[in-house]
């Protein structure tokens, strides 16, 4: 199967501010891609372009469709939760289910019922009567009952307590994800999604700073924690970022699989969060 998302030279400006600056990337079917970046990096703009919520310059195809011009057709194949707590307060739970069932040909009401039955949400409640966590649960129940090819989640677990967050990602993997579906996630809680991602896309100041599969990350990047006496020797291998922690120096290397290097300290594959900080700060230095 071809690329689910294909962006070439994607740009979007607000006045003189370039929220997306000539960005190119693609996401293949069956991947779980984490779009990671600091606030204001262009994550939301990129997601909105992909979802047909904003116009843009450059070329963008999502499932072979032009998102802005064909949003309604695209939404038959794509579902998204862009920010939490956007269900309107006046809507009743049952009305939400009925509405989605009425407009979405790929919605399976019995699936939504099954998700909802695991919560304490009453069908007759209005959204404004639910807690923030319950609203998110309702939204997820609606979205996960849609048999879509691409699922886009923007900060899906904000407002959920820790127990439900874990459960959410577990059910996402075990019940929703199969190898034909693609999931695009942005989150601040990188640690939480780290072990379910197959690909990462780092974005900073409107540009892609890393586009890589997790296997490639493990092959290419090395995090080395070095004692003070070995720091000079390790620097010979040209780390792209380093920082001090408890008197030791943590160094990040690209293409640094050299055996000599590994012997200088404690070597490991960097976590996505650490690699992200290293990439952003390393590029700024």
């Amino acid at each position, binding site marked *: 199967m071809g690329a689910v998302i294909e962006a070439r030279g994607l740009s979007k400006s607000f006045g003189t501010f370039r929220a997306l600056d000539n960005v190119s990337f693609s996401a293949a079917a069956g991947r779980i891609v984490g779009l990671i970046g600091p606030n204001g990096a262009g994550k939301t703009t990129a997601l909105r372009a992909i979802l047909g*919520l904003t116009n843009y310059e450059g070329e963008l195809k999502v499932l072979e469709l032009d998102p802005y011009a064909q*949003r309604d057709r695209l*939404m*038959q194949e794509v579902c998204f939760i862009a920010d939490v707590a*956007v*269900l309107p*307060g006046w809507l009743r739970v049952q*009305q939400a289910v009925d509405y989605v069932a009425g*407009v979405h*040909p790929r919605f399976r009401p019995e699936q939504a019922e099954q998700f909802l039955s695991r919560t304490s949400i009453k069908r007759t409640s209005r959204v404004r009567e639910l807690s923030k966590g319950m609203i998110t649960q309702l939204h997820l129940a609606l979205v996960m009952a849609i048999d879509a090819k691409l699922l886009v989640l923007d900060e899906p677990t904000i407002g959920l307590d820790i127990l439900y967050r874990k459960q959410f990602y577990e059910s996402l993997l075990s019940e929703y994800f199969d190898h034909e579906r693609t999931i695009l996630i942005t989150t601040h809680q990188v640690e939480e999604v780290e072990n379910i991602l197959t690909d990462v896309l780092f974005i900073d100041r409107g540009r892609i700073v890393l586009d890589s599969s997790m296997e490639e990350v493990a092959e290419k990047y090395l995090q080395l924690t070095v004692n003070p006496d070995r720091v000079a020797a390790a620097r010979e291998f040209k780390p792209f970022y380093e920082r001090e922690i408890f008197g030791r120096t943590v160094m990040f290397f690209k293409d640094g699989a050299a055996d000599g290097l590994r012997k200088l300290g404690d070597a490991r594959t960097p976590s996505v969060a650490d690699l992200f900080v290293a990439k952003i700060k390393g590029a700024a230095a």
Partner: protein
Amino acid sequence: MNHMPLLVRREFWEHRSFVIAPAIVAAILLIGVTFGHVEFGNNSLDKLASPEFASKQYSVMTGILSVVALPYLISMGFLTVFYLLDSLYADRKDRSVLFWKSLPVSDRETVISKLVVAAIVLPLMTFAAVLVTNVLFSFIGSLRLSSYAEHVNIWSIVWQPSAWFSAHALLLYSLVAMMLWYLPILGWLLLVSAWARRAVILWAVLPPLAIIFLEHVLFETSYVAHLLKDRFIGWFHLAINTNAAAEHAMVLDGERIPMTGRLIDAIDPATFFSSPRLWLGIVVAAGFIWLAILLRRRYSET
């Protein structure tokens, strides 16, 4: 797949005032007719029932049945204006537009559904509410009046089929004429609702007022003001031949009552539908609605 019935239902979920407002009007009217004080001077009821007034019984009854529509029309007017201003604005304000846009409903369908509610569903509901009120109103009224004047056959005056037909045909015709005539106003309200980031009411009202003011200051003319005035009241003289109606004004108790009695004979669809002003308005309305759809496509937070 045709989403329109569900989209219209959605509007009723959100706007319970569609049902509450006419229910309040109905309650007030029915309480009034049930418990209100009845008094007739100079045996006017007897007079009305007498043979020389036979031809006016129809007029009186058509008038009463038509007047009942007024409070409903006024309440519908307010409902429609506030509904349309809210329709493409409220969900941007509470950000639920992100949820609605995550579903396979086009922005064109969304905007059209709001227009369908305002221009077709609410007027039809108003018509139905008036009809139901008139039936209850007349039933209660006949009961009360027949105990008041037993020798007069109230029932035959109140339940004249020709009066009932006239009053309700006139109402239906007026609703159609009004809605077509007001389409550019409805379109303007939709456009403001899709565009404004705050203070929708001010954005709806101030630009036209500003243009009128500028025209007055710069050119000392008032074409825009006349244009807008015509847009609010012009339908009546086009759709209804008021000269024909005036001939049927009636005199009762020495007072001249400017009765709408035989307005049904005065409806003038030929003049109305052949008026270039009507069709020009519809073209302008189409332009406003098209712009509203374009703006709706572009997601913007308030």
